[in-house]
């Protein structure tokens, strides 16, 4: 018997007696005999806890981890500081061993935390409403486009080429296989969406315009001008934002975005080789009944005490089935909890300071790198915490050398943008020290 199963042989006997059968196998009689496996599965033998830990520790040691390597890599997944209390609190097993709070009275803790998450995100984004979370940034964006289509039935989607390449790929998969809309990519000029091209391509049948700010290159989009162009023809304005940047940058509610989504990993979630992350989804209040996913609302009990429940469940699959606004059931609640704890901890001053540290350090790094012969800015548009560098040597070679010096270099933009084949995208968060940045520039200087 494994330690996860309490039943002893004695227990089993008593239970079988109560049921009125002799052997456990008899309980499986509804499965036709010829379909049942005659032999054990071909799996490895069971491991004790000690053996398991030894083996998996060994495997984890085969990874290079960012406690040992200094990271200048971002591109949608960021090495931000996580205060110790985030782990401590989200590791409370009353939280993490619970499930979707269908029975509100048994889940007031998580429901209130989720309500606080929704509120914190609304404050930060300056948007009206926020749901309880979606899977991650790219699928949150795809859901936004699906929502936009359900509002105006437009037949095409205008997507900035400066949107994260993987988000564009996910969007393409979703849109091709669900709504079958045409996706039109808008080119960029000096690292930001080309407004002339956008004006050329936009028309009344455009369901929405999708941008990212700061965009994939780290550059700041002309959000107000894009808003005007978008709303002039009645399309919806969808923005994917880096929540950390909003400690400093204009929030989507202030430039009249209709739907604002984002990857919430930076808010206290670990890198984890890409997941689990956090899909943030906010919108204007008028789209409330079309919102995908779960939402927590405030109410009272009979004595008038404040409490929280899942609300507007009639939008959801377990009630509305094929007429639901989305198919999402399991979301990323624990990551939303981490984000709520993170935002509460950093608070008003802390998050602004984190954002400013990112800004100052990345600009320091950029200045130093651009001073090295053979390295120049790919773009000159304003940027937040990431910047592209055009290199005279192959990015692959540079990253290899940095890696050998325990530095994780930038994202090779040529991977996703053939026209930028000699550019590296560096990311500098508040965690990077001047010493680390100087070491990076020193090494780059040596290569050049």
């Amino acid at each position, binding site marked *: 018997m494994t330690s996860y199963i309490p039943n002893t042989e004695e227990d089993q006997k008593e239970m079988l007696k109560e049921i009125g059968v002799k052997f456990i196998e008899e309980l499986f009689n509804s499965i036709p005999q010829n379909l049942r496996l005659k032999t054990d599965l071909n799996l490895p033998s069971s491991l004790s806890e000690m053996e398991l830990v030894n083996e998996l520790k060994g495997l*984890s040691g085969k990874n290079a981890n960012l406690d040992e390597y200094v990271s200048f890599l971002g591109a949608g997944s960021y090495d931000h500081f996580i*205060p110790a209390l985030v782990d401590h609190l989200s590791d409370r097993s009353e939280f993490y061993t619970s499930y979707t709070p269908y029975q509100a009275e*048994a889940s007031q803790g998580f429901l209130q935390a989720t309500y606080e998450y929704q509120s914190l995100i609304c404050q930060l984004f300056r948007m009206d409403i926020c749901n309880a979370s979606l899977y991650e940034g790219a699928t949150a964006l795809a859901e936004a486009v699906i929502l936009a289509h359900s509002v105006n039935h437009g037949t095409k989607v205008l997507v900035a080429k400066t949107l994260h390449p993987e988000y564009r790929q996910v969007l393409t998969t979703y849109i091709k296989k*669900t709504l079958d809309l045409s996706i039109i990519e808008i080119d960029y000029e000096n690292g930001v969406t080309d407004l002339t091209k956008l004006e050329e391509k936009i028309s009344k049948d455009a369901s929405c315009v999708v941008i990212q700010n700061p965009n994939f290159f780290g550059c700041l989009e002309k959000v107000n001008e894009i808003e005007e162009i978008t709303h002039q023809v009645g399309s919806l304005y969808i923005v994917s934002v880096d929540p950390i940047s909003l400690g400093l940058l204009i929030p989507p509610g202030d430039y009249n975005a209709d739907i604002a989504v984002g990857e919430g990993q930076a808010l206290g979630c670990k890198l984890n080789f890409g997941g689990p992350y956090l899909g943030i989804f906010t919108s204007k209040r008028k789209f409330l009944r079309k919102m995908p996913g779960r939402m927590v609302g405030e109410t009272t009990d009979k004595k008038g005490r404040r409490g929280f429940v899942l609300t507007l469940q009639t939008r959801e699959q377990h009630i509305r089935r094929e007429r639901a606004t989305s198919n999402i059931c399991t979301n990323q609640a624990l990551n939303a909890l981490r984000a709520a704890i993170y935002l509460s901890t950093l608070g008003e001053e802390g998050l602004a300071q984190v954002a400013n540290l990112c800004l100052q350090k990345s600009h320091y790094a950029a200045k130093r790198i651009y001073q090295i012969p053979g390295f120049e800015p790919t773009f000159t548009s304003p940027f937040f915490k990431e910047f592209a560098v055009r290199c005279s040597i192959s990015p692959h070679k540079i990253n290899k050398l940095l890696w050998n010096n325990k530095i994780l270099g930038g994202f090779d933009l040529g991977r996703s943008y053939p026209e930028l084949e000699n550019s590296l995208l560096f990311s500098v968060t508040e965690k990077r020290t001047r010493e680390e940045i100087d070491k990076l520039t020193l090494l780059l200087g040596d290569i050049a």
Partner: protein
Amino acid sequence: MREPLIFEKSRRGRRGCSLPEYDVDEENLEKLIPKKYLRQSGLGLPQVSEPDVVRHFVRLSQQNMGVDTNFYPLGSCTMKYNPKVNEGIANLPGFTRVHPYQPQVGVQGTLRVLYEMEKLLCEISGMDSVSLQPAAGAHGELTSLMMIKAYYEDKKEHRDTVLVPDSAHGTNPSSSHLCGFRVIEVKSNKDGEIDLNDLMGKMSKRVAALMLTLPNTLGLFERNILEVSKIIHDKGGFLYLDGANLNALLGIVKPSDLGIDIMHFNLHKTFSTPHGGGGPGSGPVGVKGRLAVYLPVPTIKKDKKGYYLNYGRAKSIGKVRSFYGNIEVIIKAYCYLRSLGKEGLKKISHNAVLNANYLMKRLKKYFYLPYNQPCMHEFVLSAVDGKMKDVRALDIAKRLLDFGFHPPTIYFPLIVKEALMIEPTETESKETLDAFVSSMIQIRKEIKEDPSVIRQAPHNLSIGRLDEVKAAKELKLRWEEKESGD
């Protein structure tokens, strides 16, 4: 006592963490970024000290039932014990502090876990290939339906319909609809299994797939599974398995032997990873040979140099999420499978089914069991039997809270009125099951003697029954500044 909102604890000037001083020269903000791009308002975030944050969230945690605190027989959700060793392993910096774009030579440990996890799931299910990318069961369903759609587009067959039994999870019709399919419901027969005549009548060359849950949501195995499979396959459709209930079948049957062509797994149900208050989960997809070319990119491959991510797949449906999956969840499930091994896996299903049947046998003396036959890992009682004095399943659920039990699932299956869907799992002891039975007997007695106790429940929690109608009417979905007390 009710805990205030974190915003209500805010006092100007408090802060919850310390950050380093600037070690680079701080430049004037507007020199770096034009003013029009800068935030003009405050952030609107709370100002609280570190102890404030800690006490707040610890108190909230104390107002939450989890598997670690209470019996949690939420049907179809497989709320089994979440082994702590798996938490520890998944939290090793070698796994958590890894960037998705770092060189693959530096991720060999994780890639190996993923590669081997795919193989384990293939062996358990009999599928030929697995993708670990989907973030949840419903995401796995959507991914699968996209692959099925791609297959028929390739074959130039027009198939616009998905069949879904009336006992199915709500995600099945919802995922089908999202993927652009027409949904047709297949009726259950009096035994709670698929009505073969109804299925035959609805099966046609327009049908792309039947989405089947096994055991179904009544906790019953479809005894005519081979006939079902033949009806679907004869007309060229795919048989899809919603793997939410796989906990009953581990090492007992292989889905491939039942004619399943494509399926999803719920690692957060069957393979013991915590449900996280609603997620993250993980919903890998497994397929038989002819669908494998459509799996999302990247797949994980191995050659002489090691493990790598393979993007070169012409017929793939593409990417269904950023990066590669809910890796941390997958690592925990991998640990679980390695702990159990071939010896342990079958015992999981044996004891899950034993516990469910024991509980059912004891409870059916007191409550109506609409489908009265041996069950698999779960069973469904009904609160509608004429003698219940207008007590609803919801009322029984709320009263159970007073006795320290998380209630069963009450929102489906839709084919049972006032359903109480009970799944004890294998990680509960006989004593716990007996205590649950005692409470249910007490509730039955109260229904007879004083039903108002049930209708008013819960009585013993920090909050009474919450007014959901009011919540949906007022739609207060966030805290707003003006309501702040200070």
